[in-house]
């Protein structure tokens, strides 16, 4: 494939045609914040944290779904973008009940880490405090909707990699919810294979291993990459 040259944050670089801005940036060592992106899953451009400025166009574009073009000039961390990222994170914290201090993922949470990196020290919007519940019916895993940011990584991993189609999104807007089967108790699911990939994919403390307590829920993302490489490229490199 042909290579394209482009500039990201002033850095000249070249990347293969068909690469996304996010991939090209990663190769060049430029880290763009993401939440819904996960290596091995198809991108949906939902979290809007990876939005970047591209010279010549007024619109901000998601780095995860935008393909590179020849001569493209990308800015990933202007003051404007940083501000938008902070606001977006604030919205997420206010939306559900993210109580970091007592969360299983405390210290290992992508949302928490991003907030720290973006210098978010408080949330100016009124918290919504919605009454979400915890599904602790599965013998191995739990789902705490309070911590869910609807990134759909669990849904995509369940459909794209495991292929079971257990998880999906129900409802819409602020009432959207990750479900198992017909919004059944997860423990009653007839399709769930208990593979645990969704738990590995979750960026926050929404999906967890039962029995893990505050700060204990550490994920192994490399397993997903390993699986995708094994399935698609027939390469088994642990």
């Amino acid at each position: 494939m042909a290579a394209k040259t482009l500039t990201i944050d002033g850095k000249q670089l070249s990347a293969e045609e068909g690469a996304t801005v996010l991939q090209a940036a990663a190769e060049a060592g430029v880290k763009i914040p993401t939440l819904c992106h996960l290596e091995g899953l198809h991108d949906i451009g939902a979290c809007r944290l990876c939005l970047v400025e591209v010279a010549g166009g007024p619109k901000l574009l998601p780095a995860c779904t935008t393909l590179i073009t020849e001569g493209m000039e990308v800015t990933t961390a202007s003051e404007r973008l940083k501000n938008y990222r902070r606001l977006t994170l604030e919205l997420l914290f206010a939306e559900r009940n993210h109580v970091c201090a007592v969360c299983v993922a405390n210290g290992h949470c992508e949302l928490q880490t991003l907030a720290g990196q973006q210098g978010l020290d408080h949330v100016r919007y009124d918290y919504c405090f919605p009454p979400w519940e915890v599904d602790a019916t599965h013998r191995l895993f739990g789902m705490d909707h309070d911590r869910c940011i609807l990134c759909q990584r669990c849904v995509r991993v369940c459909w794209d990699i495991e292929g079971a189609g257990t998880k999906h999104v129900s409802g819409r807007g602020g009432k959207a919810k990750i479900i198992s089967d017909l919004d059944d108790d997860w423990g009653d699911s007839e399709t769930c294979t208990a593979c645990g990939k969704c738990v590995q994919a979750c960026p926050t403390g929404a999906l967890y291993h039962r029995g893990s307590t505050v700060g204990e829920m550490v994920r192994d993302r490399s397993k997903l990459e390993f699986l995708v490489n094994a399935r698609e490229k027939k390469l088994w490199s642990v």
Partner: protein
Amino acid sequence: MGGLMTLADLQQIKERELAAQKKIVLRCCLAAGCCSSDAHGVKERLEKAVAEAGLHHDVEVRGVGCLKLCCAGPLVQADPAGTLYTHVTPESAPSIIAALRGDQTALTQTDPNAAFFALQHSIVLAHSGRIDPERIEAYIAVDGYAALLNALTELDPKSVLETVVRSGLRGRGGAGFPTGLKWGTVAKSPGAKKYVICNADEGDPGAFMDRSVLESDPHAVLEGMAIAAYAVGADQGFIYVRAEYPLAIARLQTAIKQAKRLGLLGSGIFESPFHFNLDLRIGAGAFVCGEETALMASVEGQRGTPRPRPPFPAASGLWGCPTLINNVETFANIPPILRHGADWFAGIGTLRSKGTKVFALAGKIKNTGLIEVPMGTPLRTIVEEMGGGAPDGGRIKAVQTGGPSGGCIPAHHLDTPVDYESLTTLGSIMGSGGMIVMDDSTRMVDVARFFMEFCMDESCGKCIPCRAGTVQMHHLLEKILARRATARDLAKLEELCDLVQHTSLCGLGQTAPNPVVSTLRFFRAEYDELLQPDPHGPRPAAASAPGATVS
């Protein structure tokens, strides 16, 4: 017949229709507005009265589409005189027959030459209220399907495309993208399978133009779609219509069935190699499905959530195939453009906005209903001359265009010509054509809250700025209305508007703040009035320079 339709057949149907034409035609509006006031009862009673009077050789009682002045329904218009009876009831209907014989009638009438009608320029609505939308023969009698025939037999797809480009037609769904350019992109996109979709998911509250077109002249849309399919090389079409429009759905079903029966849809249309299949898809109540990528997801039987563009539908749409999506009114413009030529169409309207636009006039205005005017008509002409101004001595305060994605244009800008660019300059949009008039009694912050609630409920929930941002904006507006907000809250609201506009995934989110932005622009005082002093706010700069140090 099926598949063997020729010019001669078309001519024959037309002649038969014209020959059967009776001296007097009583046209009964059977569009949804009048139907809700028992227009069917009126029609039945009229038919009975005609039979009783033994006039059935001279008088035809015809169910037609929208007669436009919805506020005065049920409407009956009597040809050839053109007398327009208003507020007809089944009880009062027989006196129309009496009036035909010259008797006095107590029925109210309205002047069919009043400004509301006289200033209209009907292209899309040319057949609305004139022909029976449930009979394909009636459409053929007004030269229906002749444009398709001409295209298939005389023109190659390229020249059809060229005609549309030259006409200057722009998308009537809201954004005003040049239709010819869109068609050209789809035509050029590689792929053996292509689709044409008609977006009839008219979701803007306060808009009923597309409903009226579908109810009044469904074949025009079918013909427009077939021509489009021919031009871009598609063989399958879908009409995505909202479930809230049962009458439009029924008439479309009838129209499709009739067109298939006559071989005007299907394979080998007009003995050409062109074939075009058309299916109806019924929406299920989701505003976001008006967004094209969400609409396609819905046609595929999925949750109607949008996806990032590019790739655009023209390159990769339905099931990954190149797909042309236009709205109802856009397709309805196609047959007249092909019949009368691109230059004729380009001669109507303004430099950059060609042709006419249909608007649904509603709200605090005397004459509510459907109007079609040349692009560039001043708003004042529409609301004051045609609409008759605010009722009950009220004063017009603002005109809302573009639904939840649009804005409120204040009364002092009423001289603005209605075209894509002028409305955008004023922070509103043309939108699909809903036009809601507001008078003195309307509180603009409440209007903003109303639209924000709409967007909040209709957000699909996929992207964060729209899903969570609309909730916070709505919360802030409620706070302002409850007189609990401070200037800091208003600043937060404005900041959120900016965020949601620029970072949302699809058009719904990107335009959701518009009603707030536009009311803030023109009616800021109404917001300020509701704000509370902020005793615990940040210290004035002098008391603690720079911000928050202690020395």
